[in-house]
């Protein structure tokens, strides 16, 4: 199990940041991802695995009018 923005989410081996974003249906493009406080570069979402028990923060910035 991992925590994403305070919500629990099932974990499975090899689950990447991209998988988490997809599962949470986070469609917004301006995201900042931190795993246990460590910043994940935007180009590495596909290759960064999320460890079991991790606290993932997926910060949405603002946009629009």
């Amino acid at each position, binding site marked *: 199990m991992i925590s994403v*923005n*305070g919500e629990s989410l099932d974990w499975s081996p090899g689950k990447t940041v991209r998988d988490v974003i997809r599962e949470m*249906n*986070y*469609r*917004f*493009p*301006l995201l*900042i991802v931190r795993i246990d406080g460590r*910043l994940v570069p*935007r*180009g*590495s979402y*596909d*290759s960064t695995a999320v460890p079991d028990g991790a606290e993932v*923060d*997926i*910060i*949405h*910035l*603002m*946009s*629009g*009018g």
Partner: protein
Amino acid sequence: MDDRNMITVEIDGKPVTVEQDTTILEAARRIGVFIPALCSSDLVDPYAACRLCVVEVDDGRRKKLVTSCNYPLRRPVSVETSSEKVMRNRKTILEMMLARWPNVKLISDLAAHAGVSEPRFIHPGADLNPNACVLCGLCMRICEQGIWENIINFTGRGADRSVRMPYDSRQPHCIGCGACAEICPTGAITMADDPNQPYDAEMVRRAGMRVTEEMIKYDDEQCDMRGVGTAHLVEIMDAYDLLPVMNYRFGAHEDTPKISSDVFRQNYFSKGKPDGCWLGCTMACAKAIEGFRLKTGPYRGEKVLVDGPEYETLGGSSNMGVFDPDFVVEYNFYCDTYGLDTISFSTMTAFIMECYEAGVLDNVKTGGLEIPFGAGDAALELLHLIGRGEGFGLIAGRGIRYMKKYFAENFGADPAFLQDIGMEAKGMEYSEYVTKESLAQQGGYGIALKGAQHDEAWLIFMDMVNKQIPTFEDKAEALHYFPMWRTWFGLCGLCKLPWNDVEPPDNAETDEPAKVPGHVQGYCEFFEGVTGKPQTMDSLVRMSEKVYNFQRVFNLRMGFGRREHDVIPYRSAGPVTVEEYESRQERYDAQLKEDAGIDPKGMSSVEKVAALRKHREKQYEHLLDAVYKRRGWTSDGVPTVEKLLDLGIDFPDVLELVRKHGG
């Protein structure tokens, strides 16, 4: 990046591992190996015109000279950047350049670096100007590729080649963004200083160019503002249950894809280029639809150009329960033509539709209009009635606040129900976001000085998704900073969108990415460049705070500046009806249990609606207390005398007014 896509090469004996298809020039720069290049920039595609970046590549079978700026690395190779063959080639090119442009410092520097001090050749057309154009083509390429314009290009051949605007005439399509001047390596293109005589025009331009660079490099992968404008938010808001559907009852709908930004990109937006509100804007998110044939109204059958639609116009359509792109374009056009705001029209029509479905209205009361949710034809007929000032249009056109009173007094409707579903605050219709799950955003609408508009503070993601502002104090701080900050754009006549609809590459690494500190610094420089007065984030906010508080006092004078005027319709804070509650029952039941401490087990839906309402209304009152405290206002929402003194707006009539209201 997948390891299979990485490749290791050797440049001047140094190994470097890069992504496949990285150019040799880029790979060399990453390990600090200098390769001269005149026509190369990371803002435009490789051009391979100057030939100075030629290097020698050995792939194990043979050696060959290639231009490093456009040579993609796809297998392990060995590269020499200054072999004898390379240097002989490079020197010849530089000698020719030096002969033609002997006084251009960039050319003489590059020549000197290659060991050339005097050209072997004499050029009959040598240009002695130290700022001569060296025909690198960067200017025309950034105009075409970066700005999506084609204002300048090469003209003439051979020695007569030069960069010109078509027919040597000043082009009305040039937006004056300055990108060509900024990228010009010799100073051949310069910007004429603004006739407004800013204190430091260069400082202003550099601040602007940083945003232009970000637009060129990142907009495609970020918000695609130049491609579809704010319309990109339609599908996003739907995904987060924030797109208003049927008078804000719901936040998503299965038909949303019918009015998504892709539909407009593929079938409607006819301008394949950005369309700015004013010259010089390189975000240029306005969109246009050409040749749209109208189906209704005074221009029925005519083909017209439509400016839009933006997000709010699309969100307004879902709010009316209409998911027909033709309808969106038609109501957009006629709102513009009649001088109506699409937000106000759609929100008040959504209110009318709910009143119609709830039995408050019928087709007798509306003068024949049958107008349930989804009735696009009826909505357009109502729009024309408002435009002509006829029939039910005379009532509807006066807005929700008027209608609430009118329907109660003339149709016997329940005023409490109308207050709950009539989405206005201070007499202004809500814009198109569902705020039920974000207390901070409820405050953002309710406390906003002009009425229910999100442009003071859009906090839904921070609050509801990121959970960055969990306490009342956190929310109050956000409802202090962001309205003050965004007021500053109004003070300076600036659009807010370039602040946070494109993001600097290092924004994630800053302490407060939501504030986009890199851009705030740019605005400080912009202000200093115009006025000569250095600024900080705090000083900009302080400017706004003076005006914001003055505006609050103005509201007070006009009868809108107290706590009772910051009330919101309950639809903004929670589910009004059983139907709404039951549509998100799992969510609301959990909130009752976890947030309100009430076990929903055994409660009827009506009881749950009432219990949740009691809880949420209390939360909103706590929020007002916290925000007023943070802003230095009384518990009645009136700026205190101390606050006015602190801000230096303690004019006698202002003090007299706030004292009268307990300030």
